[in-house]
């Protein structure tokens, strides 16, 4: 059973639709016992960092998430990925979950269309089980105006948009984050979600 953490942010139905399509059981939940008994966790999210972090804090799930992320596969998607970092500077400095080293700040390269919206090509920098079976010409769907700033050890894939934009990050153990939306990235995204679920088996 995959638990999709429903803390009030994001298009959580799309993630569930994709898991249903792949034939994996999932629930949308904010219940601590359901989160603890799940085989893997997904943290979705769209919108602004401070508002989402506040919703997470208000939901009382922060400690549970931090503890569970050390024990089972955990995937943050889009803003859910950004929340994994230590802090963000979206509107104001705001603390994140600190599960992955690094921070989040605006994409500032001059002349770029912002948001970074659309399909961009994945470039791989390190092996990760999340990216098993992907080829050299895989496009995934991004929509964001802020990006992660992280070190090479935590970066698994990136794309080129003015500079390197981290696309897949992780702590090297259970925690993964994807800046793009795998649930909206066609066949490539479905492969990534499948890889994630298979890690919990």
């Amino acid at each position: 059973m995959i638990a999709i953490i429903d803390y009030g942010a994001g298009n959580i139905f799309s993630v569930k639709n994709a898991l249903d399509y792949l034939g994996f059981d999932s629930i949308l939940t904010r219940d601590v016992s359901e989160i603890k008994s799940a085989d893997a966790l997904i943290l979705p999210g769209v919108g602004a960092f401070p508002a989402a972090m506040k919703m997470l804090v208000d939901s009382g799930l922060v400690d549970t998430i931090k503890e569970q992320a050390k024990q089972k596969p955990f995937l943050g998607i889009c803003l859910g990925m950004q929340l994994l970092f230590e802090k963000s500077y979206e509107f104001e400095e705001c603390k994140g979950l600190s599960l992955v080293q690094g921070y989040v700040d605006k994409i500032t390269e001059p002349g770029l269309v912002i948001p970074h919206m659309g399909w961009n090509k994945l470039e791989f920098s390190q092996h990760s089980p999340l990216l098993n079976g992907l080829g050299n010409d895989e496009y995934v769907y991004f929509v964001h105006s802020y990006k992660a700033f992280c070190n090479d050890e935590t970066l698994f894939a990136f794309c080129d948009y003015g500079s390197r934009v981290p696309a897949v990050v992780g702590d090297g153990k259970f925690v993964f984050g994807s800046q793009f939306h795998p649930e909206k990235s066609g066949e490539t995204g479905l492969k990534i979600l499948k890889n994630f679920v298979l890690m919990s088996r």
Partner: protein
Amino acid sequence: MLAKRIIPCLDVRDGKVVKGVNFEGIKEVGDPVECAYEYNLQGADEIVFYDITASHEGRGVILDVVRETAKKVFVPLTVGGGIATVDDIRDTLRAGADKVSVNSQAVKNPQLIKDGADIFGSQCICVGVDAKAISPNKWTVYINGGRIDMKIDLIDWVKKCEQLGAGEICLNSIDTDGVRGGFDIPMLKAVVDAVKIPVIASGGAGKLGDFADAFIKTDCSAALAASLFHFKELTVGQVKDDCRSKGITVR
């Protein structure tokens, strides 16, 4: 590198895909869920449903279409047509749409853009703009499917949309729409230069090369077409092959 997007649009009325000239002689030509699935197989980067349901009671039907499509099509879905309130936006996103396209209602009530962006995020607020030239390099904004000239300057309007929090502009040229002679390059260029947010070209695609032409001559992010794809004159795949052969990055 970010790929240029090719976006097929489906006009939907009372839950059926329709096609017709103006509002006369509209005929039902298919099931929107099946059409969306077919476009997905062809490599569509996004799919737009444009709801032209006339009656208020029919409004729920488009949400069922979105709900069913979202179960089997895993690319972004946009819904436009008749979205007038924050509640309409919420209902549409909850049904599984990733973005809404607001048009006439945003012109009448620009606060809708700001409220939508504040609550749901800019990424899901696309502003659809219908415009027509009044002189070379000057255009005004129309509403109600291109029937009413609001006498608002196009460039002022798109800048205002961006400032209010729109995540994207879908720019439809009334002059080129239906003519099939290619996208309105001067209008497109003027809008792309005026804003930092992505701009989708709409209205006028009539042949294979028109898409690449828009990407070569302007920095637009995407190009949209309805009937060309719908009547199977071209597939999304053919358009992408043509773009690729001209050095344009597509997925």
